[in-house]
């Protein structure tokens, strides 16, 4: 278990800023997920923590001690790669044993041909540790196989085992589930979360999949264009995104965003006055975000946006109705019970309205969220 701290990490490649001033603290035993679209610099950040890449400036601290001068081996951190990066010529046993041999055996004991005559005690300790880890991950029966003979899920476990076997201070995971099929990915999500609980170790997990971030982590760090936008619990990131981009990225289906402008403290969007009063100067252009469950379809509501049903997504438990309105370029998504409106057809004209008590997120011109305390009065409108 180790705490990891990043202070003002900057990474520049030529003229491109890969990371711009990233500061982040990971507590000991925490499961922190760095989530962001591909190319946002999250993998680079992970490699900097591991010592595989060097930052242009800034500091990495592991257990409050500077680690910048340490090689990856000395940082005592394990990493699981998206490609698994198993040694294709070694059996599962040897793949798991390699990190231990490198640490517990002397160069003479590791030497080809003559090495086997030395250090049989150390060799036995290695074998013992490998077997324990293999049992723990239920891959004991695969020890004699080579990675090429394993399925994706099995390779994933071997990669985890290689990280686990030497009980490192912390685990870094770079999109470890991306190469698995959808079903396996969901079940591995549970297993990884359970593994974290059993080990109590520090996990730093990188993914582009917001559902992985939401379901597994203690805290989520949302990263875009080389900078951290928000670091908070999954629920807080969902409920109180600090920036429009965070709101857009977290949540599935995505949040509905549309432009509005301020009239005497009220927000007007496509002619409809939203029933809440804000302490915002007049004529300020803002973006309003309402999650799909905050909208509903009304037959004849006076305060709604008329539009045409463009697409229906029936998930069984939920029905997502995509309604094309004049409000925004993309369709509004409304979550409903499939039984609530049976017989809803494509092309039908409907009216979308905000559910009375639904939370509303308001972002300023720069995308920053306007402090909800500046909402001074919200009328409860039923209709």
């Amino acid at each position: 278990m180790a705490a990891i701290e990043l202070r003002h990490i900057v990474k520049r490649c030529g003229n491109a800023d890969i990371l711009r001033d990233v500061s982040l603290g990971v507590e000991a035993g925490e499961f922190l997920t760095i989530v962001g679209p591909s190319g946002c610099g999250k993998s680079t950040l992970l490699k900097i923590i591991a010592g595989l890449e060097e930052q242009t400036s800034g500091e990495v601290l592991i257990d409050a001690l500077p680690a910048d001068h340490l090689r990856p081996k000395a940082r005592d951190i394990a990493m699981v790669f998206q490609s698994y990066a198993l040694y294709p010529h070694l059996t599962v046993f040897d793949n798991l044993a390699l990190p231990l041999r490198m640490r517990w055996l002397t160069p003479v004991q590791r030497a080809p041909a003559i090495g086997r005559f030395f250090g049989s005690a150390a060799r036995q300790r290695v074998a013992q540790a490998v077997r324990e880890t293999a049992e723990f991950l239920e891959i004991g029966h695969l020890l004699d196989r080579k990675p090429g003979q394993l399925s994706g899920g099995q390779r994933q476990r071997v990669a985890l085992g290689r990280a686990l076997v030497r009980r490192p201070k912390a685990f870094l995971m770079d999109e470890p589930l991306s190469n698995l099929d959808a079903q396996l990915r969901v079940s591995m999500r549970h297993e990884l979360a359970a593994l974290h609980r059993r080990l109590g170790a520090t996990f730093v997990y990188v993914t582009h999949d917001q559902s992985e971030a939401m379901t597994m982590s203690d805290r989520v760090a949302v990263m875009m264009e080389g900078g951290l936008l928000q670091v908070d619990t999954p629920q807080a990131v969902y409920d109180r995104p600090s920036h429009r981009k965070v709101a857009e990225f977290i949540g599935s289906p995505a949040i509905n965003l549309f432009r509005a402008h301020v009239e005497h403290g009220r927000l007007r969007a496509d002619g409809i006055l939203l029933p809440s009063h804000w302490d915002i100067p007049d004529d300020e252009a803002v973006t309003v975000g309402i999650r799909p469950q905050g909208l509903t379809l009304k037959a004849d509501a006076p305060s709604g946006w008329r539009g045409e049903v463009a697409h229906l997504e029936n998930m069984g438990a939920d029905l997502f109705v995509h309604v094309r309105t004049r409000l925004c370029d993309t369709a509004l998504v409304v979550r409903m019970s499939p039984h609530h409106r049976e017989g809803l057809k494509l092309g039908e004209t409907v009216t979308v309205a905000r559910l009375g008590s639904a939370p509303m997120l308001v972002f300023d011109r720069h995308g920053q969220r306007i402090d909800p305390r500046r909402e001074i009065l919200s009328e409860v409108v039923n209709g």
Partner: protein
Amino acid sequence: MAETALLPARWPALPAQFPARPYRVAASESRHAVALVAPAVGLMLVLLFGPTAAALVISCTDWEFGAAAVRFVGLANFRALAADPVFWKALGNTLTYVVVVVPACVAGGLVLALLIESRQRFRAFYRTAHFLPVMSTLVAMAVVWQTLLHPTIGLLNQVLHVIGLDGRNWLREEGTALFALALIGIWQNLGYATVLFMAGLKSIPRDLYHAADIDGADSALDRLRTVTLPLLGPVTMFVLVMMAVRAFQLFETVHVLTKGGPNKASEVLLHLIYVESFEFLRTGRGAALTVIYLAIVVGITMLQTRLVERRVHYA
């Protein structure tokens, strides 16, 4: 939606005959197959199997090039070769040459490739520079080597003279002629091995080196043993076979520089075939040599492939 408007309201109808004809493997189809395979098979027969069969047949005759009468002599040519010390000398020299040139090219090529790949700068220049001998005309280059190795005006002996050593007549002495040829062979093939290894190094995933760093295999030797060498397995096998085949093909430098001399000290199989067939015009005997040469090359290549393949890991 905007994009749906771009699609036609209905898909255009299929051509009338399209669904009507049921799919059936017809006789015409196998005729097509034969017609498509025929050119390749024909060329292989004419260019590969035909000449091989011809050599086999001729090797059992006493045919001399240009002679009108041909007599079937069975294995007499082979028996004569077995009793001929020149044949054994040529065979031994060829094997010595291969045993010197192949390991030197494989090891040297690997080291060069690793050195070139370890630095970003001048990579393309080094690659081109080392590949130049492969592309050059060997006969012309042999003359250059002849000048370099010349006993009195050659650069090598002049340098040796400066540092106080006695030079030799490298290409004209029994003890050195074959090794001088081997040196030229290494010079010519090293770049080829290097370029192949460089391509192989490029295909090793970066992640594996990262994993090795994290697992603690981060010294140069450990990285080499854990990642580089095992993953170069398939390339190494290919380089070994290519180098061996090229080494067996030794001919030009022998023909230009030594003619197999002095006293057959640099006589090799391919050159002996040429001498027997086209200088002594003993075509039957030359064909027998060709058959032996072919059997050795095919045999060694097969053995090598099987041995190395056991230790090769196609990830």
